[in-house]
């Protein structure tokens, strides 16, 4: 371990000697303090702040990611090219220790740079949020919706599988199934139909969702959002979106009732809203105690309302305050550090295999192909089941093979891509310890571990003292 740490210290020293550290820190600070000048929000303070958070940290991640890739590719390959590595391998140091030491060194540099970024972003956010120019409404919006960590609680899934199977059997009997569709595809399509049907609330009808509320695990008691935006009882938010089957310029009118498991009503909210878009209302925290809680929407009569179609794919959610913004920011920085760790591992492995230019090209290609593959899988998933396919596609060997390759790659890539911290952070959504732990496990231990083994193996096999002609 001492040898690995020594190599890591050397890597850190190499970075600081090349002025890379100072240059990067300066660029990052410039980005954080100059970007707000070029940012244009939607016209609200909360919107402006969301974009600021997302863009500053996003741009900082991109800058650090590119630099990490470049540094890690150069780290081993340059040393091999310039024969400096011979000084290390001539000592009692295993090659896996060289790889690991360099990776730790790059990680330490990134950690320090990310800490500087985090402090700068936090100072900026606090300065902005504390500005005396902000009105009470803007302050409340920042405090209740943005500078906070809210746990997303989804409703308990409705048991529809039995209904789906019955309907599927009926369709089969009637010969109404789409030809060529597999059992799984047919099941998914029918399930989607059933869920959509259950999301429709016609005038005069009701729909109920059940939530399993957990006891409050808030770290900073007393700082929960309040319903009025001023002094009052801490509140949770209920978010939902719906459309209407009619567009005759009538708002959807109805009543939301929050109740305990035994049916005791704890909160009531009269709604009158346009269909489409995201809707939300505050509920006092005492109205949603730990345990099962039901939320019921009763649509008003036809003369006052329209049919409401709730989004079956993005169901109603309860957002409960559980963490401070500070903790959320720290967790998101940890996840970004994990992502940089993975990038560094890819770069180091490429550097162990190839010369610097080839390593950079190869590492960059791996990242681009992975991101593009994930993007195409993600976008095509929307029409996978039940969607419309326009035109006919000729099945070729190349197409079938590339589809298989991309799909298999996605098994590995998807878990890493899901660990994106910036969107939840800028929406005031909690980055849970589980989420952070998963990022550490996958992006800092498991995936880099694989690259470590592979990179060390390649470095071990590589001839480091080839004669120069």
């Amino acid at each position: 371990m001492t040898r690995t740490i020594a190599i890591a210290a050397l890597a850190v020293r190499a970075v600081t000697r090349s002025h890379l550290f100072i240059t990067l820190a300066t660029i990052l600070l410039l980005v954080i303090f100059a970007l707000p000048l070029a940012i244009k929000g939607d016209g609200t303070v909360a919107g402006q702040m969301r974009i600021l958070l997302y863009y500053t940290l996003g741009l900082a991640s991109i800058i650090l990611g590119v630099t990490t890739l470049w540094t890690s590719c150069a780290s081993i390959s340059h040393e091999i090219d310039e024969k400096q590595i011979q000084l290390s391998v001539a000592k009692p140091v295993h090659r896996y220790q060289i790889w690991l030491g360099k990776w730790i060194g790059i990680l330490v540099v990134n950690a320090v740079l990310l800490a500087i970024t985090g402090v700068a972003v936090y100072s900026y956010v606090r300065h902005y949020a504390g500005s005396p120019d902000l009105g009470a409404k803007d302050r409340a919006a920042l405090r209740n919706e943005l500078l906070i960590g809210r746990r997303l609680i989804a409703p308990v899934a409705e048991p529809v599988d039995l209904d789906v199977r019955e309907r599927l059997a009926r369709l089969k009997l009637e010969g109404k199934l789409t030809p060529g569709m597999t059992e799984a595809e047919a099941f998914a399509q029918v399930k989607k139909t059933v869920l959509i049907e259950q999301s429709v609330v016609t005038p005069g009808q009701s729909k109920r969702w059940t939530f399993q509320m957990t006891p409050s695990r808030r770290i900073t008691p007393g700082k929960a959002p309040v319903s009025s935006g001023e002094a009052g009882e801490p509140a949770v938010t209920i978010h939902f979106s719906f459309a209407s089957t009619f567009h005759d310029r009538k708002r959807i009118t109805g009543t939301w009732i929050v109740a305990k498991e035994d049916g005791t009503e704890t909160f009531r909210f009269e709604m009158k809203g346009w269909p489409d878009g995201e809707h939300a209302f505050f509920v006092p925290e005492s109205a949603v105690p730990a345990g099962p809680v039901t939320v019921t929407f009763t649509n008003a009569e036809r003369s006052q309302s329209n049919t409401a179609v709730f989004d079956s794919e993005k169901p109603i959610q309860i957002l409960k305050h559980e963490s401070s913004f500070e903790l959320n920011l720290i967790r998101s920085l940890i996840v970004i550090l994990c992502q940089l760790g993975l990038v560094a591992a890819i770069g180091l492995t490429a550097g162990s295999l190839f010369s610097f230019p080839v390593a950079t090209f190869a590492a960059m290609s791996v990242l681009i192909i992975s991101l593009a593959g994930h993007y195409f899988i993600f976008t095509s998933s929307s029409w996978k089941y039940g969607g419309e396919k326009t035109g006919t596609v000729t099945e070729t060997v190349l197409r079938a093979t590339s589809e298989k390759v991309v799909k298999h790659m996605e098994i590995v890539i998807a878990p890493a891509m899901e660990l994106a911290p910036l969107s939840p952070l800028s929406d005031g959504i909690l980055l849970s310890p589980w989420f952070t732990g998963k990022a550490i496990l996958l992006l800092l231990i498991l995936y880099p571990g694989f690259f470590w083994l592979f990179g060390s193996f390649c470095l071990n096999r590589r001839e480091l003292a080839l004669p120069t002609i």
Partner: protein
Amino acid sequence: MALACFWTAGIKQDSLLKKRAAYHLDSGAPLENAPPLMAFTTVVLGGFSGLLADVLWLRISYLQDDGKYLEIVQLADWITKLEPRCEEIWNFHAWNIAYNVSAAMPDDEDRWRWVNNGIKLLRDEGMIYNPANGPLCLDIGWMFHDKLGRDIDESQRYYRFKWSEEMTGLFGGAKPDYQRIQSDPAMFRRFRDEYKLIPDIMKEIDAAYGPLDWRLPQAHAIYWAYRGRNLCDKTPTIQYDRMIYQAMVVAFMKGRIVSYSNYETFATGPNLDLLPNVLKTFDAMARKYPRIAGVESAYANFLTHATLLLHDYQHIDESRAVYDLLCRTFPSKETAAGYDEFVVAARANVISHQPQPAGK
């Protein structure tokens, strides 16, 4: 050899640029009015700016599908800045913001913010980089005419109220005091820089098409169509003329603020004083576009509605005069039945075309 090539290219540069401009191929011409950072970025990125714009556009589509709208203004701003000369891009993003995104907002206030963002993108940004672009003026006019002026949006009354509120804050009453604006540099600057309203043009419009209530969107639709038409020296102007007469018809029907104190009581009514200028405009349009059926039918429809409206407001003499004009210009079976019968039939026709309440 290289020096000779550079020297020849240098000599030919000026004449090539002139020919490009003559054939409207001057996409490489330096941007006027652009801030240094933007001019620099446009030159440095060169052909890659289109590629970057595509990537940002993909992100907009993804965000919109996912119901995340906050970033769209920023991305649209960057895309339009990457391709600042392309009016279609300005138009698309402004339209997307004002129509699609605004419709996804839960309340009137949010919707108005997005509609206003769409107008601002075209008026405050697009017009700066394309100061002599007629179609862009038409697009701004369309926002006022269609999004604010017509009843296509559930929140249109709120939009009209907010716009009236803004305009009242700018010049007080229904019509600006042009003399005062000219004598007050601060006020003139606010008109010109903040709202891109040129008092001289407003005065011309009032004389030709007024008296307009400048707190309402119809006056602004006419203003932008008029400005755009003046910028189109060779291209066909029917779209501009069409917007002018359509906006005038709406202004005649509901171009006067009846009650203004707050949103709940905000109401508009007919501006019957516009009648002479609406008739004059339609007459001019009918002469200018003698073979275009749309103009004729719009004129005939206006005369029919004006006859009915003037009758209902007890301006019987004017109503009869308009009816006589209708009989002379567009004689038909309906007009041959006589004035009283025509009014009854026209009212029945209007009622039958009114939207029915839900569930009936």
